């Protein structure tokens, strides 16, 4: 169906209508950039940091929207679980990137438990999940404060540099970057060589286990059909070639490629070019497949649109200010890879049986019940997933900051993530990965620029700060209003029928 559409003025109109918030943000950000007097280098640097820091959290909002729970204001609780886990891992001497992975491991059960409880709660207030989410986040904050202010040290004696001088309660600010934690940007700073080595060995073990399982179960090892192992084998071969070229992770020999892999940041300009080239090849393949192999009628609009975007991006990158801006920006490789991995995983998940169930629950609970889906259970699973992902997102955020404000780091997590998501075009009932990524870019552009623009235009950074705060609130208010409005209209239309 997608391929049979033909470009028409109507489509352009609906494109602008559907993306009106995003377009508005683009214009405001453009004006703000002009007014701020920032250089592109500064701007892109700040933006690339913020994309790495926030995208994961925004993506954690996606699944509840799909499952019909609306915008999950309760992700704050996921953030709290991450902070609790972080405290204990630092307490027991965890450090560096491995320490952060331990934090994720410890945070998972906490987030699962809390997500389950919130899911139960939401099931008892269907239709009021969003206000419930806002309130339950504050409710949990009370217990969180009790835990950190009183329980730790007051009831369980703890000796640590993180405690207040009286020994009861945890300090306001925990420095996780200092010795002996060394967690500041520990994920961002993992070198490509490390990532490659781990990826290669992990893939090798994965393929080996897969083959053993197949042998034990006496299943055919085939390159064709639904049981094909073509993809893992292909991935392993590619990884192996790159791994060997790097001199077995720099252990056998060192060449220019190895030295390049010793970096932990990827030049944004080259990343854009190589990524664009890859995307262009994939899109070209899709177009050829559609027109030549499958001979489907009409114009394959989606690939062509993406191709056009890639070409525009490439041309833009040749423009001097953008070129110099991108050239001086390094993208933290592992963080970005994790985000891409999450996107792929979500996309995969939504096509599994459970993911499809969530969609049907989101569309209509009575229909889903009639189809034999356990609605309450599905909704709880969606909440658990969202809470766990939010916990991971908060870990990424905190490692980038390098400090944890014990009592306030979680406070605005929900607000900013949701506002960004909505700016990207998500709504209460419909959202996609694209909304999350676009939203983070647009929302944080304005966030970076507003104080500078305010300082230049109105001689006060405070105005810019309050303005961006207003934007975050107003975007959410507007999205909620639009949703309620449309729902009312739909209900009226149904009554008239």
């Amino acid at each position: 169906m997608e391929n049979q559409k033909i470009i028409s003025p109507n489509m352009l109109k609906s494109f602008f209508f559907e993306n009106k918030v995003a377009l508005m943000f683009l214009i405001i950000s453009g004006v703000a950039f002009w007014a701020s007097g920032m250089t592109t280098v500064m701007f892109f640097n700040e933006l690339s940091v913020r994309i790495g820091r926030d995208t994961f959290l925004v993506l954690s909002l996606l699944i509840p929207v799909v499952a019909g729970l609306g915008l999950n204001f309760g992700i704050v609780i996921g953030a709290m679980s991450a902070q609790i886990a972080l405290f204990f891992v630092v307490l027991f001497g965890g450090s560096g990137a491995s320490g952060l992975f331990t934090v994720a491991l410890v945070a998972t059960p906490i987030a699962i438990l809390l997500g389950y409880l919130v899911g139960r709660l939401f099931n008892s207030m269907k239709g009021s999940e969003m206000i419930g989410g806002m309130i339950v986040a504050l409710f949990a904050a009370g217990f969180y404060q009790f835990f950190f202010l009183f329980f730790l040290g007051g009831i369980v004696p703890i000796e640590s540099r993180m405690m207040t001088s009286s020994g009861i309660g945890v300090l306001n600010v925990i420095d996780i970057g200092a010795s002996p934690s060394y967690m500041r940007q520990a994920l961002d700073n993992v070198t490509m060589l490390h990532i490659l080595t781990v990826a290669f060995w992990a893939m090798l073990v994965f393929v080996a286990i897969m083959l053993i399982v197949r042998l034990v179960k006496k299943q055919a090892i085939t390159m064709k059909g639904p049981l094909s192992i073509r993809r893992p084998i292909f991935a392993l071969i590619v990884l192996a070639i790159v791994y060997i070229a790097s001199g077995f992770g720099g252990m056998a020999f060192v060449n220019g490629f190895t030295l390049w892999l010793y970096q932990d940041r990827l030049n944004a300009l080259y990343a854009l070019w190589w990524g664009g080239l890859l995307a262009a090849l994939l899109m070209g393949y899709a177009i050829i497949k559609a027109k030549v192999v499958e001979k489907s009628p009409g114009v394959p609009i989606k690939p062509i649109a993406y191709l056009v975007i890639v070409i525009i991006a490439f041309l833009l990158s040749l423009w001097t200010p953008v070129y110099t801006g991108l050239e001086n920006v390094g993208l933290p490789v592992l963080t970005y890879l994790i985000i891409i991995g999450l996107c792929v995983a979500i996309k995969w998940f939504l096509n599994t049986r459970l993911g499809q169930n969530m969609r049907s629950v989101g569309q209509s609970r009575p229909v889903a019940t009639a189809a034999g889906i356990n609605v309450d259970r599905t909704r709880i699973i969606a909440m658990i997933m969202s809470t766990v992902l939010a916990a991971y997102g908060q870990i990424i955020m905190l490692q980038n900051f390098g400090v944890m404000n014990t009592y306030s780091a979680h406070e605005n997590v929900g607000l900013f993530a949701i506002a960004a998501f909505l700016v990207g075009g998500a709504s209460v009932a419909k959202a996609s990965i694209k909304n999350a990524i676009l939203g983070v870019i647009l929302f944080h552009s304005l966030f970076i620029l507003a104080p500078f623009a305010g300082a230049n235009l109105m001689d006060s950074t405070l105005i810019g700060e309050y303005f961006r705060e207003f934007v975050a609130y107003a975007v959410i208010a507007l999205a909620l209003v639009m949703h309620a409005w449309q729902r009312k209209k739909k209900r009226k239309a149904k009554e008239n029928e």
Partner: protein
Amino acid sequence: MSKPQDVVKSEVVKDDFMVIVRKRIAAFGLPRIIILVAFILMFVLAGIVGMNLPSFFGDVLRRWGMWGILVLAMVPSIQSGNAPNFGVSVGIVAGLLGAVISIDLNYRGAFDFITNPALHRIAGALVAIAIGVIGGTVLGMLYGMLLNRVKGSEMAISVYVGFSAVAVFNILWVRIPISNPIAILPGTGSGLRQMINLQDDFGDAFDSLFRFQIGSMTIHTGLLLLFFLMCFFMYIFMKSKRGMRMSAAGDNPTYARASGINVDRMRILGTTISTALGAFGIVIYAQSFGFLQMYRGPLMMGFTAVASVLIGGATIRRAKVFDVLFGAFLFNGILTIALPLSTQLIPDIPGVPEMLRLIISNGIILYALTRAKGGR
């Protein structure tokens, strides 16, 4: 023959009694009982550790009056079917604007013709209230029109409309042309302070009216009288024809419409009164507190007001003036006693009242939300 029947009968009566007790408890709500018991226990505990109970009780009464009108603002909102007004901060910022203008007028000497210091203060407060209520009425009407378009999602939207209003006024506070040096940030020439001291303006205006002392207990008569008066007015209004219509519109819109009530207008009326009371309430709050809390100060006040009326026994759909009196007293009682009691018992822990406030207020709202599902 008759004997076993009697036994059965008495058992039935016994059962009925238990059922009634259980029903009463269910109707009153377990969380409310917990809060009430906690309050009584804390009170007793405070007596045991030797705190000055009368002085403490005076404080509770004062805070009761301070918050009272803000809590009262929930009644018209709930009764008209708009759910608890989390966005009462729309009215609060209007009240703050009135207060700031009153302060500036005072600095320019507008009230100089009144020589009596007590009357001078009251004049300042009345001007603040007048401007605030007018602003609140206008904003409230707009806000009410918005809420009419989003029936069924009022609560989530009112939270963010309230936040947005606070943020818009934050920008105004930075730029507002006020010359009173007490109000503006020192050294900058523009932009209001976070906290504006009301000592030389209308601070204590109503608190000091007919204030008297019984032993160590201070009774702020003016403040409490004003609160009771407003409650009385609200009670009269709710019993009036218009008030009854408003309640009917909120209770059963379809039925109300059938009997010729303009439901949308009644809903706007409810929101407008609520918002105007928010403006009124913040001036009363500020004169008692002694400071105007600008910028993010009013951000979460709506939550506290909502929680208070719910603690008093209101639901998302129904609220009485009694709920305001009872809820505001109980909630403020607990919070007032928590601070001195916690500093006495566990001096090393800061922020116990804040913790309690978060847990109690949001706990009761969650409870009310889970109860509300039958109504929808």
